[in-house]
């Protein structure tokens, strides 16, 4: 047996399950760059992580329990994810207004009105209205840090993002890479209790809020956010201190390490986009159904790259839209699968697809022509040349359980 070519995903961007069932005759890679390691690499290896290349890093796709058990553990208790491969950087300027105005020239999100200690999801757009990356922006809660924004960007795009930011930012606003920092996520209904025991201040945070605080005396930055659809936290700290925090968390009976495989199935069930798959430079935020992330003021004022297209799409509508797709049967429809209308006309493509453990069945998302985007529309998925019946559905597949 061998991995079928249904998974067309770029290895640099997707956690390749160990599926290239070591056939022994795999083509030698073209002198790949050595994989980078996060500060938790040896911990992953010691604790049974199955390491795979992901976005240039050697990362755990799963541990001994396997993806389904890890996924279910996050939904039932709490999971700990190493996301230190992601890019963390600070934007620093004279005051919030200065930094926020500068960033707003590059993203369609409302940054100026971001309150201290609040976090927002937005995108770096290009002049054509495509998406260069999606990112989290947090305004420091600390009054002494007025004029500081923390950015968290994708691992595979971070170097390009930083170059883009450095080139476009005005002289008074500096980009400071925080490569010396680690980032972990603790996700699931038991996260609040597990984290709260070591950082009582974290309990009172609401979704998309952040504080600078201490975790058992270790300086860190904690936000109530994540990418699984569950309640939980992301904790940023110095790389040298992250192991101590992780070991404290893993001593909590409810917390287990979770690999990238379950991270992917969790975010897919939560209907969240994976950059390079569900969104890229060919998709606009409106087509990607991310309109909610663009505040009214920005929609009206524009002033970000690609505003012309994005404002036109807001006015006149789009020709295609990102939707959820639920196959009627059991066969997963993976990235690249062609979507056809019930009468066989090509209407789009799957951009992420697989098995949803909480749904207990196959789930996909992708783009379909606007007329087929309404939930409940019957479509066909062309899997191994056979049309399989499916329906468009509203996202998410599994309701979010954020602490609002």
């Amino acid at each position: 047996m061998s991995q079928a070519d249904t998974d067309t995903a770029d290895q640099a961007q997707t956690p390749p399950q160990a599926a290239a069932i070591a056939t022994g005759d795999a083509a030698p890679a073209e002198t790949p760059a050595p994989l980078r390691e996060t500060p938790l690499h040896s911990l992953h290896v010691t604790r049974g992580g199955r390491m795979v290349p992901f976005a240039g890093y050697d990362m755990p796709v799963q541990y001994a329990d396997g993806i389904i058990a890890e996924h279910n553990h996050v939904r039932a208790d709490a999971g700990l994810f190493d996301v230190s491969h992601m890019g963390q950087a600070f934007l620093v300027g004279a005051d919030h207004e200065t930094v926020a105005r500068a960033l707003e020239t590059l993203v369609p999100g409302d940054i100026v009105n971001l309150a201290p200690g609040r976090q927002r999801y937005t995108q770096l757009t290009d002049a054509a209205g495509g998406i260069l990356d999606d990112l989290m922006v947090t305004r420091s809660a600390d009054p002494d840090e007025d004029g500081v924004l923390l950015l968290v960007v994708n691992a595979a795009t971070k170097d390009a993002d930083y170059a883009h930011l450095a080139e476009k930012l005005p002289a008074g606003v500096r980009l400071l890479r925080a490569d010396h920092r680690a980032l972990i996520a603790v996700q699931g209904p038991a996260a609040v209790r597990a984290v709260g025991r070591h950082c009582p201040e974290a309990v009172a945070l609401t979704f998309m809020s952040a504080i600078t605080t201490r975790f058992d005396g270790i300086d860190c930055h904690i936000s109530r956010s994540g990418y699984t659809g569950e309640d939980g936290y992301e904790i940023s700290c110095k790389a040298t201190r992250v192991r101590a925090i992780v070991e404290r968390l893993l001593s909590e009976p409810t917390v287990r390490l979770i690999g990238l495989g379950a991270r992917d199935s969790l975010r897919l069930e939560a209907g969240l986009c994976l950059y390079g798959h569900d969104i890229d430079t060919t998709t606009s935020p409106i087509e990607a159904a991310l309109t909610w992330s663009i505040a009214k003021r920005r929609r009206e004022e524009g002033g970000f790259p690609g505003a012309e297209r994005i404002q036109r799409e807001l006015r006149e509508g789009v020709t295609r839209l990102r939707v959820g797709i639920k196959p009627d049967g059991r066969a997963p429809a993976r990235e690249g699968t062609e979507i056809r209308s019930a009468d066989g006309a090509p209407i789009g493509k799957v951009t992420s697809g697989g098995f949803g453990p909480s749904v207990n069945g196959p789930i996909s998302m992708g783009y379909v022509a606007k007329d087929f985007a309404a939930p409940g529309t019957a479509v066909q998925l062309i899997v191994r040349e056979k049309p399989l019946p499916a329906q468009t559905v509203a996202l998410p597949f599994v309701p979010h359980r954020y602490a609002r």
Partner: protein
Amino acid sequence: MSTRYTKDHEWIRLDGDVATVGITEHAQEQLGDIVYVELPEIGRKVDKGGEAAVVESVKAASDVYSPASGEVVAINDALGATPGTINEEAEGKGWFFRLKLSSPAELNELMSAEQYKEFLATLE
């Protein structure tokens, strides 16, 4: 007759003139949680080394090749509802299909359990 193995990590076990086919313990371990299988239709003729089934884990789909030529005479329907059986018992209850072999001598070209074990050692 003992079980024979392919370099693509399928096993085949002959009983009379019908052989049972599945994927190996090593294969299921590498794949991780299996969530779907597509089995051949009964009556289909398959060639040695030809695509005969598909197995999908949470993350990826893989082709399963027939270790020998013949006609499919039975399939493991139970896998439709419980594909995880392959993870639990890849070389037993997790079998995929049964073949009436067209040339049983083909099995001599495959590896014995001992040879397969040595082969796996070369992959590490």
